[in-house]
């Protein structure tokens, strides 16, 4: 039987020191909403739980002229109730509304959701279209800002090394951006996404000047539909253009068939939800399907 250990550092510095100095496999624990099921299902391979939930400096949402910065320990409920986010990052607000269920949202942190690196991660998809970057710290490499596009590598795997700690996720403020997130699940709460989509765009009259499209649960990691983005940039939104984009996005994803849905169905939904997410961004304030 494996032995487990626990440690609760009292500062970020102490946490980084522990990560750096220890030979043991350390799992960083905060909301524990993934750790506890992993323990129960014998999927946990780490032996030390480093509890950072007491590090208040990692909690909270800060907004200055240019950047919105969300501390890694900020919970989904805190993000959901943040006016700053509701005003400035609609897609992220919408994602939090349907994340798991209200009780889990009181504990699940944005840092944990990033570190868990699920292809279905509901906070990652909106952060992706907000062009977010993840602040990662370690004793040896100091503070790095990693674009979210470079952060996730494979299902359950990010670029985080054993010494790394996520301290924040940030994105630029841009009042011209309209965004929308849609989650498609098999029930209205406590559902792993069959597919999710985020769209953030800027318009000049009817012409798209900038668009970002991200999808979850249709590839090994959440992905950006770069071809579709590039097709839509500079184009005037019209039914024909949207139709073309719907077909294009379907060719950019590599879904699998699993217990929740077939790959054909996911592919079909990708097109439909792209259109709906664009519509939702245009009117800003859509909802889940």
């Amino acid at each position: 039987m494996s032995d487990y250990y626990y440690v609760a550092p009292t500062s970020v510095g102490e946490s980084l020191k522990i990560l750096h100095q220890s030979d043991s496999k350390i799992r960083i624990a905060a909301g524990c909403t993934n750790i506890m099921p992993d323990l129960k299902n014998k999927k946990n391979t780490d032996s030390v739980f480093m509890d950072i939930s007491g590090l208040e400096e990692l909690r909270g949402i800060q907004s200055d002229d240019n950047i919105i910065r969300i501390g890694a320990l900020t919970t989904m409920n805190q993000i959901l109730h943040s006016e700053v986010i509701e005003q400035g990052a609609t897609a992220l607000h919408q994602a939090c509304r349907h994340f798991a269920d209200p009780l889990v949202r009181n504990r699940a942190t944005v840092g944990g959701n990033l570190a868990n690196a699920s292809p279905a991660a509901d906070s990652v998809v909106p952060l992706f279209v907000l062009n977010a970057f993840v602040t990662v710290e370690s004793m040896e490499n100091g503070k790095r800002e990693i674009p979210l596009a470079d952060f996730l590598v494979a299902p359950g795997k990010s670029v985080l090394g054993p010494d790394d700690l996520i301290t924040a996720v940030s994105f630029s403020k841009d009042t011209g951006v309209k965004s929308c997130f849609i989650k498609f699940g098999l029930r209205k709460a406590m559902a792993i996404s069959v597919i999710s989509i985020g769209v953030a765009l800027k318009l000049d009259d009817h012409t798209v000047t900038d668009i970002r499209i991200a999808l979850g649960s249709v590839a090994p990691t959440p992905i950006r539909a770069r071809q579709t983005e590039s097709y839509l940039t500079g184009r005037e939104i019209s039914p024909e253009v949207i139709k073309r984009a719907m077909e294009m996005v379907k060719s950019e994803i590599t879904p699998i068939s699993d217990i929740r849905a077939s790959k054909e169905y996911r592919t079909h939904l990708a097109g439909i939800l792209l259109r709906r997410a664009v519509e939702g961004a245009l009117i800003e304030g859509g909802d889940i399907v």
Partner: protein
Amino acid sequence: MNFEKDVAIKVNINGIEIRSTVAAAESLLEFLRKHSETVDVKCGCSQGDCGTCTVVFEGQTVKSCLVLAAQANTKEIWTLKGLEKDPLMQKLQESFVRHGAVQCGFCTPGMLVAARGFLENNPNPDRAGIRDALSGNLCRCTGYQKIVDAVWTVASEKASERV
């Protein structure tokens, strides 16, 4: 800093300070259920899918199977039994009983704690809001109907009190 296999904790459960030692990987739910006073907190799935283990942890309603017991050190936890003197809980309990919202009763402690936490922060909800608030608590007996009716009644009464 030392890595501890067995963690000494001091935790306030339902107003009573308890000192204990917990295993590093033990869940708060396991810890609570070891104590006969807190078996009102139920275990339905151990992985956060059913809500029967719902408690108040540092003022927030959470699923205790998703919390490490060691994280309870210096914290305050309230379970259904501990909230028996809380006026809002009493109103909810009375409403649940009167409406017939209790059948087998296994989901009831978690459901009541979740409902109370919701009403405390949302004094004027609509019925859809109540359903969303309880969407992390499964019930297999009632179809949720009388549970929603019971919470709605308390919310409506509170709203009319304020007028």
